[in-house]
């Protein structure tokens, strides 16, 4: 992978990470968007779409309410696509999921750290904020966004670094059966998490019937195809 491409992926992962909470929250951070674009950058849209779909299922578990802590799957999907593309073929999904899930956890931890740093900055500026100093307010806000951009860049860099390690040390050492087992684990986990996450949103009320009707319709569509 060329340095230019690596920097391109780093820039894309940073933008994706910034979209999650800070700006503009237009769902560019969704794996279904982050993955295919990363795939297109690598000339492999199919891998990007597959991992985008896989991590989108994991994303269904996340409800970003209040101070809830959750993994960050956007930059993680970018890293996952980069390792899956290089690994090629069926090895991609399992290895991509491994790198992506570790990066996703790291992303979640980094969000918490940035929120604590923001709180410290707010505490330091309390007197100026209480005096209604608009310049301090704006500076505080801008610095916090820059802090989040640096965080997103670091998380993406970590993910791309893990991808490089996985490509170098893991890709050639796994047997064919091992590759299939990894893929089974990745796809099985994604389907389990996506279903459980959706059912939590749906609840036990009347929406459950709509969910069941949807599953039957989807299954019929699969059968007809």
């Amino acid at each position: 992978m060329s340095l230019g491409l690596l920097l391109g992926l780093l820039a894309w992962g940073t933008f994706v990470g910034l979209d999650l909470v800070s700006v503009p929250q237009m769902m560019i951070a969704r794996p279904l968007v982050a993955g295919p674009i990363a795939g297109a950058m690598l000339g492999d849209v199919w891998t990007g779409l597959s991992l985008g779909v896989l991590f989108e299922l994991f994303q269904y578990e996340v409800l970003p309410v209040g101070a809830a802590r959750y993994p960050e799957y956007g930059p993680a999907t970018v890293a996952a696509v980069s390792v899956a593309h290089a690994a090629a073929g069926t090895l991609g999904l399992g290895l991509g999921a491994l790198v992506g899930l570790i990066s996703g956890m790291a992303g979640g931890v980094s969000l918490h750290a940035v929120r604590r740093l923001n709180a410290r900055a707010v505490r330091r500026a309390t007197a100026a904020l209480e005096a209604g100093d608009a310049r301090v307010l704006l500076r505080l806000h801008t610095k916090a966004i820059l802090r989040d951009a640096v965080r997103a860049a670091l998380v993406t860099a970590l993910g791309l670094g893990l991808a490089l390690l996985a490509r170098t040390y893991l890709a050639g050492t796994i047997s064919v059966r091992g590759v299939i087992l990894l893929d089974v684990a990745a796809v099985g986990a994604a389907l389990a998490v996506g279903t459980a996450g959706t059912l939590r949103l749906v609840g036990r009320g009347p929406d459950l019937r709509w969910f069941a009707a949807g599953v039957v319709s989807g299954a019929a569509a699969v059968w007809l195809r």
Partner: protein
Amino acid sequence: MAAMTAARRARPAFGRSLLRLFTVQGSWNYERMQGVGMGVAEEPLLRDLRVAGDGAVYRGAVARGAHFFNAHPYLCGLAVGAAARAEHEGVPPEQVERLRTALCGPLGSLGDRLVWAGWLPFTSGLALIGVALGLGLSAVLGFLVLFNAGHVALRWWALRAGWTHGMRVAVALRQPLLQRATAVSGPAMAFVVGAALPLVAHYLSNGFVGWSRVALAGVAAGGFAVLWWLRARLSGVRLGLALLALATLAGWLWP
């Protein structure tokens, strides 16, 4: 009359306030949560208060605007508009604070139901169906356009409604269209995501043959059961990593 004049003068700042609302969570923190971002978004609407009271009215309003706030980010504009309007109308500071506090819960709950548990999974589910049916990048682009049409419209409506109603902003939350959208979004999301799951399962398992298909069904069903059973303690990411670790171990033991 004074309030109407102020309202007319503040109108041009709506665009700037809306743009800043897109960054409302940029300085999210455990002290004031969205407070600082709210203050930043409200500030353009307060600028024509700078002339009053030698700037003291403006500075007081800016300080209040940056106090603790937490709600759904797409609906923050409602509180921004309402608080700015109240400041222009000379509502006592403690009432403005009470208004902001009172709006946190309803705006959070409405936004969570309407967007996080409705519009977002609904549009994402449609995109998953599109990808599974072979639409590729068009499905992704369609998701971005459709989701953000609703997202931007909601942010714009919230800011305008907040400014229009001021202290009586609760009226805006009872709008029939909003009520209907909230009522419909749950069943629509449930149906679409329900339909997406079998299609996506088929799409992702295309490369699997023989025993691996049976194993996949077992892992998905078992994983779901474990997640459901241990839902207070086990997250999806941990389940995924545990299954991948088991698969790696099994791959070494059974090469």
